[in-house]
């Protein structure tokens, strides 16, 4: 499976600095996002200096590499530097074009899955949920911590790129194997936190009171819903939306409008 084509011209060596630069340049990944090839233009832009160094004088090689990288790709932006680093090591080692392209295509999907599970579905809800509780009380701690976490995540692109580079081909097997396990654990954490977020941040309180006798009323909220389970309405409404999104494929924007219409209607009726 390793390169056994002796015709390949000898390729240039990459320094640690080159990989660091590659990690930083991974920010270009979405610079020209479009529906035809998604991230491929930005992806190639990020890869170019590295490819240039590897191919040096060999302009044909560089052109081929750039063209190959322009194929459709769509992956998670924190996983991108990992894949870039990995491919850099392959380019440097003189692997065949087809091997390199094959791996890129095989890996961007799983990496999107595991990356999204960790960054969009786990880290963001947790960081947002916790910092929002500070921000809602007007404390600057909220936005500050939020900002610092994401600055740190940005700079994590550099070690991630190095990780990909040094792991090289050995990493591939391991990524394939562990991506399911890590996604599974991330989903457990994510779902637990989302459960907590629903209880803490979705707010529905029924104002209706039923008069049972002169001067005596029963509050639907405190004397009925709150006695069954706390926050049962937020949970119920979230599940309704989930159902519509999942089974009826309703668009989120429609559900936002629906929520507004319902809220205004029920406000007008005095129910909410």
């Amino acid at each position: 499976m390793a390169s056994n084509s002796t015709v390949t011209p000898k390729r240039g060596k990459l320094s640690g600095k080159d990989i660091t630069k590659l990690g930083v340049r991974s920010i270009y990944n979405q610079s020209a996002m479009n529906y035809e090839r998604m991230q491929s233009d930005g992806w190639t832009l990020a890869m170019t200096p590295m490819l240039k160094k590897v191919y040096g004088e060999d302009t044909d090689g560089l052109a081929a590499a750039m063209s190959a990288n322009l194929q459709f790709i769509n992956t998670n932006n924190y996983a991108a530097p990992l894949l870039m680093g990995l491919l850099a090591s392959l380019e440097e080692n003189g692997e065949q074009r087809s091997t390199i392209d094959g791996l890129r295509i095989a890996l961007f999907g799983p990496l999107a899955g595991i990356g999204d599970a960790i960054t969009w579905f786990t880290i963001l809800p947790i960081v947002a949920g916790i910092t929002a509780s500070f921000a809602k009380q007007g404390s600057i701690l909220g936005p500050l911590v939020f900002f610092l976490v994401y600055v740190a995540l940005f700079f994590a692109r550099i070690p991630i790129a190095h990780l990909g580079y040094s792991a090289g081909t050995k990493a591939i097997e391991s990524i394939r194997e562990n991506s399911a396990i890590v996604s599974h654990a991330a989903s457990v954490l994510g779902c637990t936190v989302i459960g907590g977020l629903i209880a803490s941040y979705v707010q529905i309180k029924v104002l209706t009171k039923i008069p049972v006798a002169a001067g005596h009323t029963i509050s639907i909220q405190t004397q009925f819903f709150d006695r069954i389970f706390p926050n049962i309405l937020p949970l119920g409404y979230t599940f309704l939306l989930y159902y519509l999104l999942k089974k009826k494929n309703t668009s989120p924007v429609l559900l936002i409008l629906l929520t507004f219409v319902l809220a205004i209607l029920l406000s007008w009726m005095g129910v909410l």
Partner: protein
Amino acid sequence: MTVTLGEGLLVSLFALISGIDFWLEGFYIFRPMIVCTVTGLMLGDLRLGIIAGGLTELAFAGLTPVGGTQPPNPVMAGIMTVVIAHTTGHSPATAIGLALPFSILMQYIILFYYSAFSVFTKKLDDYAKEANTKKFARLALMPTVVVGVTYAIIAFLCVYGAQAPMRELVNAMPGWLSHGFQIAGGILPAVGFGVLLKSMLKMQYVPYLLIGFTAACFIKFGNLMPVAVIGAALAFIEYSHARRNSVVDKKLKEIQDNANNGGEDDGI
């Protein structure tokens, strides 16, 4: 209060920067948490910005661009929530609702760009074939510039240009309507969580959702850290189990493969 020209330009500049940040998904200063805070600071009401940041961040919690989709725009939502609350005196919770049209407007503009930018791909292919890295870079960055400028213009128009009619509109609202908007702001996070659940929630994760929900209901604490810690503990336990399971599966597969090979070998 009114937004001055200077403030309008300042916010517009910030829209350019955070708009590009959203386009590239760089430092996440495009999230309402940061956008609101900075906008508040620029309008001279930091505290309002922070509070609106907390509320709007949650309302947009699950509304992410995962898989190349495009959600209601968090930058415009953040800016306009603070601007509306600031200029009309309504609570941020109400303002979230009123800011939504601007957010959706920007969403559609980005969607348009996603389609439009396909026109560059042809040219980029050519540059790649020539290995002309300079020209390639310049063209590949063009969309980012276009997007940034668009954010600046739209933000300026909405923030500074449209403030008079908007204030009138908002002031004319009856009580039940603004109350309705406020309530909607409180329910809105449900949409985001629903979207998150759509991609995460398989049957086997329902128990964890229930545990997190119940824990948050009964642990009285100011933030969600306790729930996150419990979730992390459970995730870790599951991780250990899954690791162990995959080892067993591997061994089983090995044995079966050997058996098959053995069988075949015998046959030959």
